[in-house]
Structure formats: structure tokens, C-alpha cells
């Protein structure tokens, strides 16, 4: 069918201005498709990174023991010992699990932690805080503490504590000064302020404190084990499957971040649906544009189609000529539109370097290949109707025109 390709190409090059306009129309549709893909995709990534980028993607927490109960020989429940307010459950074998979890594909970092409540006291000032004990060397494994430090260092040495800026301001604390931290269990220790961070998250900056894991063991009377293991993944969206894999591997209750984030997921889904609608409209515009242009071309070339039929060109050949025209228009428009889209996205900062006031475009999410493929398929579908109309041309009538 090389000859049909030659004729299709000749028809397109014979009316250069018309073809250029048609290709431009298709390219604009593709440009919109790519722009919307980059915007919607970038926005979703941006929202995710800002909302869940700094939290654990998969969390393993020790399952609470069932409350102790006292049952009479007859089966009557005599007494229930209520669970304490402070979490007592621990993952005693954490040291065994950590290397196994680190080996799971997609796992970027693992952070065994001890968490609990406490009071920070400086002079007469007391603040209720949430204490997290981190393993020294893994301070930035989940929350990027290193990146958020505004003073000092994130390194958690012995007797060191890290505070958020708001909390440090509230307590008028400066680097190197000491502060008293008392756990909810009543164990107290004096720690030196080693660093101040500013995450932009009010809760963490105002009431979160970080200490070394050995310090936390002392404070919460946990000589071994941890209260939770937080895991960071290379792909946020793989949390569900990775959690299942970790569950299967360890038997622990690994919970993905998506559990309890239904509203966020619904919002992202709605945003994605909006994107699909907009992209579909762009594709429909392309299909209508190509179909109408080719229908006009078919009408204009009726006498030529009649001549071809008289010279022995079959209906299939005529269909192929016009479908090939559609495919070529789709391909050229797709490539041109994709190039325009890429160039238009270049000036936007990358997702990681996003600045307030600009659009969070993600040039890597332009769906260039998909846009070109769908455009070519759309253009081919759009050309079928005109091509069939062309194949039905009666040579006698057409030549007589």
C-alpha cells in the first residue's frame, strides 16, 4: 500500500495551507491534552507530596493486647482491667524486622521509633508535647528534618533534643540551652537543644519534639523494642501493595497511608476525573476537526476519486488513501502538538522546585506518547466516515461533474 501512502501524501502536500491549518488545529488539541496532563498530574503530585510526602507511607504499630478479664467458672465476666491511656504495646522484635523490610522493593527508608506524650519544662513554662524517639543516623528517614532545620543540626546525639520553631519561640529557647522533658510515665531527663526546625506544619512545629532512641527508651521505660516502624517508599501510590507485601513477609499489621485518607483520595480522584473530561474534549475536538476537513476533501476530490475508480482502483484502495491522510494528519499534528506542549512546559519550575504563585506543572507527566497515540487513533477513526463516503463515489457521476 505504498502507492496509497504516496497519493495520501501528495494530497496533503498539494494543499499546503489547508494541511498546515488542519495540522495546527490537531496540534492545538494535542497541546491542550499535554498541558492538562502535566497540570493535573503535577497538581496531584504536588498535593500528595505536600500532604503525605513527609509522613510515613506504611506504618507498623504493635497491636494492643486485649484487656485482661476475669471470668467465673460458670462463664460470667467478673472483672475487666481497662487498657491504659498511654500505649504500652511494643514491637519487641523490631531489630529483626528492619533489615527484612529494608529489602522489600520500593522501600526507601525504615525508621524504628518510640512515641509517646510528655511535658517540656523550662523554668515556669510547661508545654505538652508529642515525643518521638528516632534512631540516630535515621533522623531524616521519614520527615526530612535535615531539610527543615533552620538552626543547628538534625543529628540526635546523646542528651540532645530537636524542637519546632514555634515551640522554641514559645519557650524562648536558643541552641545549646537545656530543657526538662518528662514523659507521661513520669520519667524526666534534661536535654540540650541541638536544633530547631520549621516544617510549615503547625502541629509538628508547635508540639512535636524529637529525641534519640536511647533517650526515648529511658523516658518511656522500653529497654527493647519500639512502638512503631515507619516506612518511606519511592512511590507513594505503591503503598497499598507494599503494605500487603510487608504484611505477608513479617506477619505484622502494616498500614498504608491511604487508610484513613479517603477524603484526600476522593479529592484526587475528582481532580483526575476533571482531567479526563478535559482531555476527552480535546480529543473529540481533534476527531471532529479531522473528520470535517476530510469530508470536505472527499467532496472536493470526487471527480478524481471517480477517475481512480475508472482506472481500476478498488474501494479498499480509496478508503486506504483517505484513512492514511487522516493518520498522517494525526501523526503530524500529534508530533507538533507534543513538541509545542513540551516547549511550553519547559519554563515552569520542576515539581521539587515549585514556588508559590506558579502552576505546579510536571513536565514528566505530559503523557506525550499517549497523546500522540490517541491522536493518531482518533484521526484514523475520524477519517473512516469520509473514506467510506469516498469509496462509495459513483465514478460515472463523479467523472461527469
Amino acid at each position, binding site marked *: *500500500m*505504498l*502507492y*496509497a501512502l*504516496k497519493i495520501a501524501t*501528495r*494530497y496533503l502536500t*498539494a494543499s499546503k495551507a489547508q494541511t498546515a491549518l488542519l495540522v495546527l488545529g490537531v496540534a492545538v488539541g494535542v497541546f491542550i491534552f499535554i498541558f492538562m496532563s502535566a497540570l493535573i498530574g503535577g497538581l496531584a503530585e504536588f498535593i500528595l507530596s505536600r500532604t503525605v510526602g513527609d509522613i510515613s507511607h506504611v506504618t507498623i504499630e504493635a497491636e494492643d493486647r486485649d484487656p485482661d478479664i476475669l471470668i467465673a467458672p460458670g462463664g460470667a465476666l467478673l472483672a475487666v482491667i481497662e487498657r491504659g491511656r498511654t500505649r504500652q504495646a511494643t514491637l519487641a522484635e523490631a531489630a529483626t524486622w528492619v533489615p527484612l523490610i529494608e529489602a522489600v522493593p520500593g522501600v526507601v527508608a525504615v525508621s524504628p521509633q518510640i512515641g509517646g506524650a510528655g511535658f517540656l519544662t523550662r523554668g515556669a513554662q510547661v508545654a505538652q508535647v508529642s515525643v518521638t524517639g528516632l534512631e540516630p543516623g535515621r533522623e531524616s528517614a521519614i520527615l526530612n528534618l535535615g531539610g527543615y532545620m533552620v538552626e543547628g543540626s538534625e543529628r540526635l546525639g546523646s542528651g540532645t533534643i530537636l524542637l519546632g520553631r514555634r515551640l522554641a519561640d514559645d519557650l524562648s529557647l536558643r541552641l545549646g540551652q537545656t530543657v526538662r522533658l518528662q514523659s507521661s510515665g513520669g520519667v524526666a531527663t534534661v536535654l540540650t537543644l541541638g536544633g530547631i526546625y520549621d516544617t510549615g506544619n503547625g502541629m509538628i512545629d508547635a508540639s512535636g519534639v524529637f529525641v534519640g532512641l536511647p533517650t526515648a527508651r529511658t523516658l518511656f521505660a522500653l529497654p527493647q523494642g519500639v512502638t512503631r516502624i515507619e516506612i518511606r517508599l519511592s512511590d507513594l501510590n505503591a503503598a497499598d501493595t507494599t503494605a500487603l507485601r510487608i504484611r505477608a513477609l513479617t506477619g505484622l499489621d502494616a498500614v498504608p497511608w491511604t487508610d484513613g485518607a479517603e477524603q484526600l483520595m476522593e479529592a484526587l480522584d475528582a481532580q483526575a476525573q476533571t482531567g479526563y473530561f478535559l482531555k476527552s474534549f480535546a480529543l473529540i475536538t481533534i476527531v471532529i476537526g479531522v473528520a470535517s476537513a476530510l469530508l470536505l476533501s472527499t467532496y472536493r476530490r470526487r*471527480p*478524481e476519486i471517480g*477517475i*481512480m*475508480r*475508472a*482506472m*481500476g*482502483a*478498488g*474501494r479498499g*484502495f480509496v478508503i486506504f488513501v483517505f484513512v492514511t491522510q487522516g493518520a498522517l494528519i494525526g501523526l503530524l499534528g500529534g508530533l507538533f502538538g507534543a513538541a509545542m506542549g513540551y516547549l511550553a512546559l519547559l519554563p515552569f519550575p520542576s515539581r521539587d522546585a515549585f514556588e508559590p504563585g506558579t502552576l505546579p506543572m510536571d513536565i514528566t507527566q505530559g503523557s506525550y506518547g499517549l497523546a500522540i497515540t490517541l491522536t493518531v487513533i482518533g484521526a484514523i477513526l475520524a477519517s473512516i466516515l469520509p473514506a467510506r463516503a469516498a469509496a462509495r463515489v459513483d*465514478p*460515472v457521476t463523479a*467523472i461527469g461533474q
Partner: protein
Amino acid sequence: MTALLEVSDLYKTFGSGEAETRVLRGLSLTLAAGEMAALLGPSGSGKSTLLTILGTLMKPTSGRYEMLGRDLVAADDRALTEFRNLHIGFVFQFHNLLPDFTALENVVFPTAVREGRETAEARARGRELLVRMGLEARVDFPSTKLSGGQKQRVAVARALMNRPELVLADEPTGNLDRDSAMQVMELIAEINRDEGTTFLISTHDEKIAGLCRRQVVVGDGLVTG
């Protein structure tokens, strides 16, 4: 001489009811291989309809049409398209060249469309035909830049490209001046003589008809002479 084609009792009716028009009314005709015949008759006598049916571009309402032993009334569109490509050439009054193609590309079209590409052999054959038509200097000219006479000679070359047994010419000189018309007719006569190609030429021009060895007169949908 053996019969190349034979039509008998051919009817062609257009429209229905009050608008019904019977153009052919039981026409019969036999053309022998190698003949050069003129098809004469007044306007509306059915000449063009007959040529269209003989060219397999239209089916008769009833009747029999056989060429090269093939029943062309019963054949389907695909078979007729293939048959037309291989065995029948057309020359129209208004040349009907493809405007976006060169003279050579127009000539090789019937072969290229069958083979799916323009082969070197086809291009050589097309070039040879154009040279024979006296158009060696116009081989790669866009067809739109040729004169009327040149276009018609390209159309004759195209009709001969696949070495058809039959060439149907509908007023091939009707749109040409006297000199160009005579040039085209001389070429047709030469090809008929040298290659034995059968020509059936529809014309109103007695002089053109006089160049043919046989005159077929059509009147009122029948062969009358």
C-alpha cells in the same frame, strides 16, 4: 476475426414511474479484436451509456455482456474493478487527469494501483508511451501545466498503460482544436494498427468517424447501422 466483446438485448433504464427513461432498448453489438470503430449518434441516443456499460462502470438493467469470455453482468464490483484495470482503457472528453500528479505519474497510475507501488518497469513503460505520444519534454510536467492537446495525449498513454484489449474513447477530440484532434486520432490509429488494440470511439465528428474502419450508429437506444 474473433469477437472481443459481445452485448445482446441490452436494456438500461433510469428512474422509475413517470420519471422513467429508457436509454438502451435491447441493443446488441459485437466488437472483434483489433477493430477500430466509431460510435455515432445524436445526443441522447445512448452512446455514453453504452460506453459506460462496456467500461463496466455501470450495469445494464438487463441483457448480456461478455468480454474475453467473461460474463460481466454477473460479476461483482471487485471483479469488475480488476477486469477494468487489466483489460479496458478509457479516454474521456475532458482528459480527466489527476491534477496533483505529473504526466508520467498519471500514465503509470493504472499499473501502480494494481501493484501497490510505482515500479521501475512501470515508469519505463510510462515514459516510453509518453515519448511515443511526442511528450518526451513533458514527462515530469505537472498535468495542470500541459496544453489541452498534451493532456489528451497523456490520457491516451494512460489508457494504454496496462496494454488493454479494449480502449473506450468518449468524444476524445471533442475538446480539442482541429490540429490537436487529428494528432490524437493519428496516434490512436497507429496504436490500433501496430498493437492490435481495439478502439471504440464515440464522436459527433464525421471526419473523425471517417478515420475508423467501422461506424456503429446508435439511435433511440438501438444499433441502427
